[in-house]
C-alpha cells in the first residue's frame, strides 16, 4: 500500500489539534497519543524509502494547485526528522515531568514536526514559507518554555532574528513571483532556465540565502543559536540542533540553489565560504565553553559547516562543468554528514539533558566522576562523542573521510586540511566533556546522583545503536536506496523541473 503524502502533515497536525482537548486529567493519554503519532510517522517514513512521486493537493494539476514532492532528498530528511522526533518524544515522557502544561508542550512538539515535514515535502515556495513559519513559531515558544530569565531572553533573540529571516524569505518569494509569474518550484525553475538569473532574480536569491542562512545559523548569522539551543528543554534542543536547522535551513537552501535557481560558480563559492567560516568559527568558539549545552550548540554550528561545505563544493564542481562523480562524492559526504549529525547531536543533547536532570547543573566544572554513577549516560555519550570526533568505526568518521577524499580529488587541498584540523578541535572539545563530566573526582554534593532509567534510557540507547550502525549506510544496497537518490536530486539540478512536470 502506498501512503498518501498528505498523511505526513495531516497526522501530526490532527494530533496537535487534539492534544489540548485532553486537559489535565488525560495527561497520560495525551503522552501515549503523541508517542504513537511519532511512531506512526517513523514507520510510514520507512515505507517511503526508494520512492519518488508527486501529490497534487485537491486534484488541481500544477501550477493551479499546490503539489507535494517526494524525492530522494525529502525522503532522507523525512527519515531523519522521524527518527529524531521519535527518540526526543520518548525522552520527553519523563524529562518533561518537571514542567507544567505538558499537553501544550506535546502539541507544540507535534506542530514543529508537522512544520518540518511540510517544508521538506512542499513543492511550492509560498507553501514552504507557510510551513517554515509553523515550525519556527512553535520553536520560539518551545525555547521559552521554562519562562526563566535566560530562556525568555534567548527566545526573544531567536524570535527577532527568525522573524527577520522569515520576512526576507517572503520578500524573496514576492520577487520571484514578480519576475516569473509562478509559485511552483518546477515552473519557476523552467522560467529561470529560459531567462537565466537576471539581476532581480539574483537579488531574490541573495534574500533567500540570507533568510535560510539565518535559519541554518551559518557563521555570520549564527548569533541566536548558542543562546536558543541551550535554553530549550533537552529534547527540544535535540530537535532544534538535530533536525530543525537542517530542515528549515540547509534543506531549503539546497532546494532553492540547486533545483530552483540552478547552481552557478559564485553561489557555489558563497556556500563553500559560509561552510568554512561556520566550521572554523564554531569550533573555536566551542573550545572555550564550560556550559555543556552551550559547547554542544557551538559545535552544531561547526558541524553544519561541514554539511554546507560538502554541498557547496559539489555545487562548485558542477557549476564548473567538472567531473560529476567528484561532485556527487562531495554532496554524498555533505548529506551523509547531515544524517549522522542529526543522530549524534540529538543523542548528545539528550545525554546532556540526562546529566542536567540528575545533577541539576550544566557547568562542566561542577561535575566529575559520573562514570560509575550514570553508566548508560556515560556509554551513550562516549559513543556519540567518538562519532562526532570522527573516530574510525563510528559514523562521523565515514562522512568526514568522504569529504576529505572529495576535497582532495577536486584539488582543494587546503579545504581537506581545514576539515582535518577542525576534526581535531572537535576531538579536543569532546575529550574535555568526557574528562570533566565523567572522569575525575566526584564532588561532594553529587554523591547521591542516580541514573535515569525507563524511557529516557531507551531513547538514548536506541540512538546510540543507530550511531554505531550508521556506517552501514555506505553498504552499496543501502546506499543506493537511501543516500544515492538524495545525491542525484542535487546533481540533477535543473532537470528537477522536467521530472516534476512530466510526473
Amino acid at each position, binding site marked *: 500500500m502506498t501512503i*498518501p503524502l*498528505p498523511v505526513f502533515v*495531516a497526522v501530526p*497536525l*490532527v494530533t496537535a*489539534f*487534539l492534544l*489540548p*482537548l485532553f486537559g489535565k486529567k488525560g495527561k497520560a493519554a495525551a503522552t501515549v497519543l503523541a508517542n504513537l503519532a511519532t511512531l506512526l510517522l517513523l514507520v510510514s517514513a520507512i515505507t517511503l524509502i526508494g520512492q519518488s512521486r508527486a*501529490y*497534487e*493537493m*485537491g*486534484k488541481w494539476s500544477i501550477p493551479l494547485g499546490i503539489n507535494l514532492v517526494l524525492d530522494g532528498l525529502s525522503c532522507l530528511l523525512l527519515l531523519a526528522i522521524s527518527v529524531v522526533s521519535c527518540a526526543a518524544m520518548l525522552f520527553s515522557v519523563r524529562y518533561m515531568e518537571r514542567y507544567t502544561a505538558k499537553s501544550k508542550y506535546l502539541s507544540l512538539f507535534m506542530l514543529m514536526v508537522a512544520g518540518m515535514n511540510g517544508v521538506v515535502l512542499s513543492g511550492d515556495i509560498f507553501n514552504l514559507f507557510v510551513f517554515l513559519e509553523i515550525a519556527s513559531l512553535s520553536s520560539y515558544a518551545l525555547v521559552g518554555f521554562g519562562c526563566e530569565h535566560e530562556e525568555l531572553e534567548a527566545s526573544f533573540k531567536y524570535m527577532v532574528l527568525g522573524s527577520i529571516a522569515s520576512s526576507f524569505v517572503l520578500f524573496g518569494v514576492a520577487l520571484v513571483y514578480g519576475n516569473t509569474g509562478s509559485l511552483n518550484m518546477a515552473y519557476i525553475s523552467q522560467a529561470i532556465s529560459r531567462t537565466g538569473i537576471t539581476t532581480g532574480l539574483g537579488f531574490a536569491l541573495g534574500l533567500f540565502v540570507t533568510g535560510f542562512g539565518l535559519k541554518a545559523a551559518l557563521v555570520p548569522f549564527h548569533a541566536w543559536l548558542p543562546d536558543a539551543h541551550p535554553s530549550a528543554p533537552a529534547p527540544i534542543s535535540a530537535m532544534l540542533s538535530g533536525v530543525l536547522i537542517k530542515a528549515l535551513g540547509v534543506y531549503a537552501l539546497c532546494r532553492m540553489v540547486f533545483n530552483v535557481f540552478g547552481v552557478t560558480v559564485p553561489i557555489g563559492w558563497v556556500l563553500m565560504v559560509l561552510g568554512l567560516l561556520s566550521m572554523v568559527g564554531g569550533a573555536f568558539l566551542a573550545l572555550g565553553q564550560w556550559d555543556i549545552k552551550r559547547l554542544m550548540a557551538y559545535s552544531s554550528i561547526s558541524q553544519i559547516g561541514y554539511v554546507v561545505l560538502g554541498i557547496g563544493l559539489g555545487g562548485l564542481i558542477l557549476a564548473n562543468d567538472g567531473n560529476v562523480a567528484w561532485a556527487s562524492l562531495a554532496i554524498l559526504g555533505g548529506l551523509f554528514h547531515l544524517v549522522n549529525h542529526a543522530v549524534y547531536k540529538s543523542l548528545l543533547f539528550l545525554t546532556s539533558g540526562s546529566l542536567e536532570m540528575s545533577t541539576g547543573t550544566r557547568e562542566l566544572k561542577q561535575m566529575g566522576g559520573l562514570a560509575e554513577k550514570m553508566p548508560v549516560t556515560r556509554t551513550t555519550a562516549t559513543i556519540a562523542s567518538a562519532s562526532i570526533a570522527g573516530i574510525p568505526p563510528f559514523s562521523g568518521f565515514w562522512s568526514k573521510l568522504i569529504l576529505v577524499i572529495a576535497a582532495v580529488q577536486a584539488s582543494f587541498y587546503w579545504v581537506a586540511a581545514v576539515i582535518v584540523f577542525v576534526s581535531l578541535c572537535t576531538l579536543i572539545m569532546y575529550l574535555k566533556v568526557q574528562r570533566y563530566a565523567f572522569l575525575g573526582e566526584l564532588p561532594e554534593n553529587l554523591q547521591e546522583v542516580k541514573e535515569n532509567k525507563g524511557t529516557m534510557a531507551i531513547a538514548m540507547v536506541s540512538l546510540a545503536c543507530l550511531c554505531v550502525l550508521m556506517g552501514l549506510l555506505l553498504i552499496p544496497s543501502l546506499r543506493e536506496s537511501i543516500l544515492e537518490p538524495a545525491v542525484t536530486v542535487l546533481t540533477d539540478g535543473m532537470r528537477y523541473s522536467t521530472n516534476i512536470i512530466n510526473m
Partner: protein
Amino acid sequence: MKGMTIIVKNISSFVKVLIFLFGIYIILFGHLTPGGGFAGGVIVASSYVLLMLAYGREFAEENLSLPTTSRLDCVGALLFAAIALFGLFYGATGFFWNFIHQKELWGQPLKLLSAGTIPLSNISIGIKVGSSLFLVILILSSFRLETSASEKE
C-alpha cells in the same frame, strides 16, 4: 478592571450585537462578496473584545469562558482538517478535494448555496480565527491583571 461608564456599557451592549451579526454575514457570504472566514472571524472576536473592554474581563468570561474558547479553537481547526481529510477519503481522491462542488451535489454560481466546501471551510475558519484571537486578548489581559496585583503586594 471594572469596566467603563454606563454610557459606554449601554452603547457597546447594543453595538456588540451588530458587530457580531456583521461578522456572521461576512463569514457566510465570503464566497460571494469581499470578506471570508478570516475577516469575519476577526470581527466576531472584536465584538467580544468590545464587551471585554466595556464591561471588564469577568463579564466577558461569563459569556465565553477561557476553557470554552480554547476548546472552540481546537474544534474549528479540527473541522477544517476534517473537511480536508473528507476530500481524501470520499472516493479516495485527494486531500482538500472540493467533493461537493466536483460531484455537483448542490448549488449554482452566485447563490448562497454554492461553491461546495468553500462556505463550510469559511465557517470553520471563522470559528477558529474568532476564538483564537479572543483567546489571545483574554490571555494577555489576564496576565496583566495578575502581575499588577502582585506588584501591589
